[in-house]
């Protein structure tokens, strides 16, 4: 616990004692666009807010398509926490009240990573243009995740200043945990010493940059066995990038794991946890991810 936190905690506790004597404000209605923000908001707000993650659990929230009813529900919220970095692809297609939107990554918007896949096209109106975007799993750089959590805290405190002390009390341990993850992964990154890694999906850009991983990505799905063309491209990649480990968003199917092993590549799961997990929570999932990545440094694949 640093000096600032030692000063803030007693103030927060005193504040919470005071705030408990005030009349209760209506519960804050907060919507989030992905599970990390949902977790941050739920952890910080505690009982003072109802946190909504409006999409089903089995889809990638970045590519969710809301219905008019979903949008109507979001319009009724007090606060809508956005990830930024062009995460929610549905956002430009819906109407939401501007004042309720909070981009939690605006503090580091200049650090967004532009996507490499960028095909321009021209069809007469508007000149040449491209549908480019940025990498959006910003929270996989845990220093950025801490900034996003801070942004969530600030937004909640602005909406309910009365509970600011309660929010600080919950935010500080969360920030500590995220900073610990950041330190731990920095050590892992250093220990890996530039060992080549492969990502099964282009979602690890911020992880790669923050922890100096020598990682290249393919575009495979965990539940689908890659076709011959994909295996050929993979073999070509291995010639220039001789990786021994491949990071998966989720458990890959056994056939894929076996074939990868035959090529000398081991599989580990590094789950970005974009949507709500079946078990555990954001922190436990990320701690497990960090632990698995760390295990690479102490084990050598056959």
């Amino acid at each position, binding site marked *: 616990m640093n000096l600032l936190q030692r000063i803030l905690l007693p103030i927060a506790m005193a504040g919470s004692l005071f705030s408990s004597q005030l009349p209760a404000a209506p519960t804050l209605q907060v919507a989030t666009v992905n599970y990390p923000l949902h977790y941050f908001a739920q952890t910080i707000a505690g009982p003072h807010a109802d946190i909504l993650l409006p999409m089903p659990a089995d889809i990638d929230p970045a590519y969710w398509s809301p219905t008019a009813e979903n*949008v109507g529900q979001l*319009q009724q919220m007090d606060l809508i926490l956005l990830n930024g970095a062009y995460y929610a692809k549905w956002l430009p*297609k819906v*109407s*939401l009240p501007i004042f309720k939107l909070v981009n939690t990554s605006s503090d580091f918007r200049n650090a967004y990573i532009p996507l490499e896949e960028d*095909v*321009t096209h021209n*069809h007469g109106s508007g000149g040449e243009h491209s549908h480019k975007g940025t990498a959006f799993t910003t929270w996989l750089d845990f220093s950025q995740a801490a900034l996003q959590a801070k942004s969530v805290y600030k937004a909640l405190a602005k909406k309910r200043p009365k509970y600011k002390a309660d929010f600080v009390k919950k935010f500080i341990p969360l920030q500590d945990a995220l900073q610990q993850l950041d330190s731990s992964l920095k050590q892992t990154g250093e220990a890996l010493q530039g060992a080549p890694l492969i990502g099964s999906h282009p979602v690890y850009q911020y992880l790669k940059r923050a922890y100096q991983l020598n990682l290249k990505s393919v575009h495979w799905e965990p539940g689908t066995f890659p076709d011959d063309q994909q295996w050929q491209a993979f073999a070509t990649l291995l010639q220039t990038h001789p990786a021994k480990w491949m990071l998966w968003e989720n458990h890959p199917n056994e056939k894929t794991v076996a074939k990868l092993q035959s090529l000398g590549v081991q599989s580990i799961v590094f789950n970005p946890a974009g949507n709500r997990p079946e078990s555990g929570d954001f922190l436990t999932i990320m701690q497990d991810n960090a632990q698995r990545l760390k295990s690479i440094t102490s084990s050598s694949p056959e």
Partner: protein
Amino acid sequence: MNDIFYLAWRYISFNRFKTLTLVTCIALILFLPLALKMLLMKSEQQLMSRAVSTPLLLGARGNSLDLVMNSLYFADERPDSIKMQSVEDIYHSGMALPIPLYARFKSGDHPIVGTSLDYFDFRQLELSSGRLFAMLGECVIGAEVAERLGLSTGDKILSSPENLFDLAGVYPLKMTITGILKKSYSVDDKSVFVDLKTAWVIQGLGHGHQDVNTITDNETLLNRNKNSVTTSAKIKQYTEIDGNNLDSFHFHGNPSIYPLTAIIAVPTENKSATILRGRYLSSEQTEQLVRPQDVISDLLNTIFKMKSFIDAVVFIVALAMLLAICLVFSLSYRLRKNEINTIFHLGCSQGTVIQLIAAEISIILLFSAGLCALGLLALQHVQSGIVLRLFVS
């Protein structure tokens, strides 16, 4: 007394043409200044109420009257555009809440106003049916638009092209009506409201078209390489946004430089309003922050100066008319000299004759006042439209 009025009535109904002329003249003398006063009061009330309820308005530096008239009454005169970035600037200043406006396009005679959902709360507009717009391509219409065009929720309304001769321009957008507003007796009743993003789609800044990666037709696909695809104008562009093509709609360029016609700034407190106004005073600024109340007051002062002049003209004309009426009455009584002598011979006193003449004048004045009141009632019924046409269109 009834006999006197009976005789007077018989006389004026016998001289119908003369009576009608007199009644019309007197009614006009009464009507003109009262009608003018009524119209000016109504215009002051209408213009000021909306101006007073709009604390600050940010727009491009230039004619502040055009800015206010376009932003408050969606008038045809369009101020230069400002950038969407200004909304964020105001919001992040913490001094005011910004409500963006993009009042550039029309659907027939009705302005299409691109704005955020916050506008409805700000103007206290309520729905009589349906819901507010939620998806791209949806709109909410004012009560008068619905009445005039016979539209209801679920119907479609088309944006009008800005220039009929621009054949290569942007296609009109067919929008789905999701809600109809309750009557607010303001220009909002005559407007079509859309999300800002829908307004930008109407302008062509955002669009939806068939997937360029799946085109195989050689007439449409002109060139394809690893980094670029070039198609001809034959590519299918969508003119209506629905569930099937919504995902294909996208915007190009940096949204922070997308255009707006104005921003309504609602200050958090009086002090913030003053500080915020100070920020836009520099002549190097490309934007101006005006108090609509001040601009409308200036406009009304000019109108009231004109009113004094019109009042003087009306007074002179009324005086001339009154003199003419007096002449008509005096000539009429000179012509009726024999008739009045007969009344004396029949035994009536001079007082009775005076009562008879007073009764005739009273009846004529009563009819004139009635005619004037009818005119004023008719004017009151149509005055909202007249005021908007006089000062807004």
